């Protein structure tokens, strides 16, 4: 294989070349940089390339040959802080902000020998399911440039799908890793809440956010979670639980695995082709020896409503710090008063979806409305968690579609926030319950658009997800398809 084609490989394939001394990190990185140069103009997946630091990163690699991600190029969602590299959450309000610290996951990636290629586009502050609310303009879906890549980690998913990066980091608050992974035909994992440190992840909704891998196959996701997972004392919500070697779960055997199919996830609004492929995928799992059973998750219908109270409430609080005082944008138009500085800075700096969520969140937390909205939403959250716990008493995992539809057209839902919010209908309950879930490719529509299968697991049981997803992947060919660009 010519070295200029290395960008096509998975992480484990590149590692094999390194082990056999057939390739060098310089060659691999160069191949990716050329690929980015060739295709990113069409996709807009990257908001920033770490041109200056890549050479230094390569030099620092010398002693790291034995490290788990030696010489593997990774793309980072722009809401994860990278020391001295601009980190903006795709928002004008953070233009020019260079954090003086690395996020915990970045420290771990550096320690593991990974090469940080650059920052990926996203919905502004991760508010969205289409990557259209970015201040850098939308990212395109590599499978159809007229369509959205999903969101909010659309840049990371598109970059991995289009072979612009070997591995990607995303963050998932209501489906922001899994939905774009599904829509771009790659693997996306939202780990259990508390599995991966949030230190250095610019918060959207702190009780829901979780960083996770976006990769070309299931093995790569396991390799990446091995590196980024684990307890971090700087994040008080990170859990001090034993962290297994996830590659040990990559065995092609799911005989006797108990798989639940929730009936509420297969009614109304779901695209026919998506429904068809999910049905096929379930049959495949059955044919591999899994025991399939239908279950009910009765509170599913309330998940989106509860989510759109809890998430904006936390977001309105988390975004309060963007005020022009210490960092980021300060409006030049404000001259007269502190209030004017706040108002103009926030009016200029936040896009319309960010404003919508801040207003929504501020409203539901206001005195007199708190009980009716926020407190009620928390009760719904508990019910949804209990629904899932009940199913997990009898089943090992649950399978659903990741997204009710394949990728939609750019602009199609931009003016209709409610229909946009519904694209996360199958992914939101997972965040509310804090459990892990993975999305793997399970088909392509007539128009050539990827469809994703979502597998939900018990808290801190990512192993079962890897096991089921790996077995499915080994017995299908979907993950091998790549978009032609």
């Amino acid at each position, binding site marked *: 294989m010519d070295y200029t084609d290395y960008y096509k490989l998975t992480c484990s394939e590149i590692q094999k070349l390194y082990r056999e001394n057939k390739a060098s990190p310089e060659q691999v990185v160069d191949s990716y940089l050329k690929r980015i140069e060739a295709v990113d103009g069409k996709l807009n997946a990257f908001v920033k390339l770490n041109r200056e630091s890549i050479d230094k990163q390569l030099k620092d690699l010398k002693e790291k040959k034995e490290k788990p991600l030696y010489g593997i190029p990774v793309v980072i969602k722009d*809401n994860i*802080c990278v020391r001295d590299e601009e*980190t903006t959450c795709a928002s004008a309000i953070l233009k020019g902000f260079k954090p003086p610290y690395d996020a915990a996951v970045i420290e771990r990636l550096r320690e593991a020998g990974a090469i940080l290629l650059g920052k990926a586009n996203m919905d502004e502050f991760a508010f969205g399911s289409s990557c259209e609310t970015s201040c850098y303009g939308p990212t395109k879906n590599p499978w159809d440039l007229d369509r959205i890549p999903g969101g909010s980690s659309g840049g990371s998913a598109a970059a991995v799908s289009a072979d612009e990066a070997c591995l990607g980091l995303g963050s998932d608050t209501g489906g922001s890793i899994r939905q774009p992974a599904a829509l771009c035909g790659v693997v996306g994992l939202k780990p259990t809440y508390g599995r991966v440190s949030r230190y*250095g992840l610019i*918060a959207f909704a702190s*009780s829901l956010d979780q960083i996770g891998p976006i990769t070309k196959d299931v093995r790569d996701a396991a390799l990446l979670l091995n590196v980024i997972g684990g307890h971090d004392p700087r994040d*008080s919500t990170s859990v001090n639980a034993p962290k297994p070697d996830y590659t040990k779960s990559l065995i092609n055997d799911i005989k006797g695995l108990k798989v639940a199919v929730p009936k509420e996830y297969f009614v109304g609004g779901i695209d026919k082709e998506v429904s068809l492929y999910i049905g096929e995928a379930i049959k495949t799992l059955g044919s591999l020896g899994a025991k399939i059973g239908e279950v009910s998750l009765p509170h599913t219908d309330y998940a989106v409503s509860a989510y759109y109270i809890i998430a904006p409430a936390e977001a309105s609080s988390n975004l309060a710090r963007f005020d022009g005082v210490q960092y980021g944008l300060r409006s030049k138009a404000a001259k007269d008063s502190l209030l004017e500085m706040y108002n103009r800075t926030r009016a200029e700096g936040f896009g319309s979806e960010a404003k919508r969520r801040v207003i929504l969140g*501020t409203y539901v*937390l206001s005195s007199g409305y*708190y009980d009716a909205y926020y407190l009620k939403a928390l009760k719904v959250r508990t019910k949804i968690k209990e629904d899932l716990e009940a199913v997990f008493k009898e089943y090992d995992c649950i399978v659903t579609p990741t997204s009710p539809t394949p990728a939609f057209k750019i602009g199609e839902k931009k003016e209709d926030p409610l229909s946009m919010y519904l694209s996360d209908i199958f992914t939101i309950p997972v965040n509310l319950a804090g459990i892990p879930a993975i999305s793997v490719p399970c088909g392509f529509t007539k128009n050539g658009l990827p469809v994703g299968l979502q597998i939900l697991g018990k808290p801190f049981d990512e192993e079962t997800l890897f096991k089921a997803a790996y077995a499915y992947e080994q017995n299908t060919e979907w993950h091998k398809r790549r978009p032609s660009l």
Partner: protein
Amino acid sequence: MNYETVIGLEVHVHLKTASKMFCGCSTKFGSPPNTQVCPICLGFPGVLPVINNKAFSLGIKTALALNCRIAEFTKFDRKHYFYPDLPKNFQISQYDKPFSHDGFLDIETAEAVKKIRLKRIHLEEDAGKLVHKEEDDYSLVDYNRAGIPLLEIVTEPDIGSPSEAYEFLVKLKNILEYLEVSNCNMEEGSLRCDANISVRPIGQSELGTKIELKNMNSFKAVRQGLEYEAERQTAVLKEGKKIEFQETRLWDSEQLVTYTMRSKEEAHDYRYFPEPDLPPVVPNAALIEEIRKTLPEMPKQRRERFIRDYALSGYDAQILTKEKKLADFFEACLKIFNKPKIVANWLMSDIAAALGSKGMSIGEVSFKPQDLAEILGMIESGAISGKMAKELLKESIDTGKRPAEIAKVKGLSQISDKSAISAALEKVLSMNQKAVSDYKTGKGTALTFLVGQVMKETKGKANPALVNELLKKRMGGA
């Protein structure tokens, strides 16, 4: 109609921890601006708070000493308002589940002991400080204070007068100092007090409209501000009018008036909600017991012990235990010079006066218990007179020099050598034959006169007791 005042206090206390509430930055006072900050206390994007366990323990210690119950479940909440000294534009505080509640503190009023109930004590982080200069059209922010652990102690509206409020604060400060949980320095802002005050006709059970009073920078200011407000509100009611609105007023310690800061309509909606970055805390029962064991002797117990063990009067014991450092000084001195009444007298009179003229307290000067013990020992052995001792003491407190050293340099020593005195004595006797004969005829004042003459002759250095004794012996035997 007669009116009564109803007061509740909110006291904020900086906890004496090495590092801040949610990060590792130092809490030292008085460092150059923004030198004790990090991304966490600056509220940078992406960083997360971690609870300072030491602050939590000091909080529990305080709550136990104030007879509070420790909550079985407690959590932190975010309190939102926009201001540049608040880096995140929310303060991490505790809203509906404070870590402790339902305590009390007894104060002594003119009539009796009165129980002031404590509604709650909670933990929170302090804000930074804005610095304005008159001539500039901008403000600067110093975040050194941002994130310092604060304890907020809230009373029930059980305080009936400004002087009771004053008494409460003195008592509370006393306890906090005994606990060594805070520096309690109002000038440095490590102890701050806001008040809620309303007035109602005596006999009315319903509370009057309350006014929140802020900006009182000393206990005296608290009393003055409350006195002003009580009078102002009473005057309004006496005119048959009403206190129309709840409002926040500020005390102006120069004009000696209160004025409106913001009315209820302008009041913040803090939009409290549980801090998602910090899991709820279930205080460990074993830990609470552990902390309970570390509680030191409280002022009241110590006062009682002083009366019992040292045979001090109630008044003396009260004064000596008012400040922990003074009581510690007293007991340390007794270890070397074990005459409680004498040590107590010196502490309450001359030392108190010397400190008072410097405006300092016992802990702030380098005068040590062994210094006092040394001086008292010198008096007892006759090496110096009481008068010299006072001089020595004042100078030692003023200059920080050791008493023995000063005595040596100044030649402050008493002549207790009989042969050294006898020359002066003989001279005085020969020059004052009249007084000698007066003495012999039984005139007592003659002896005092002669002692004085000998003292004069020795430039005050003779030991007066010895002179007295020698004179009597000499004249009696003549």
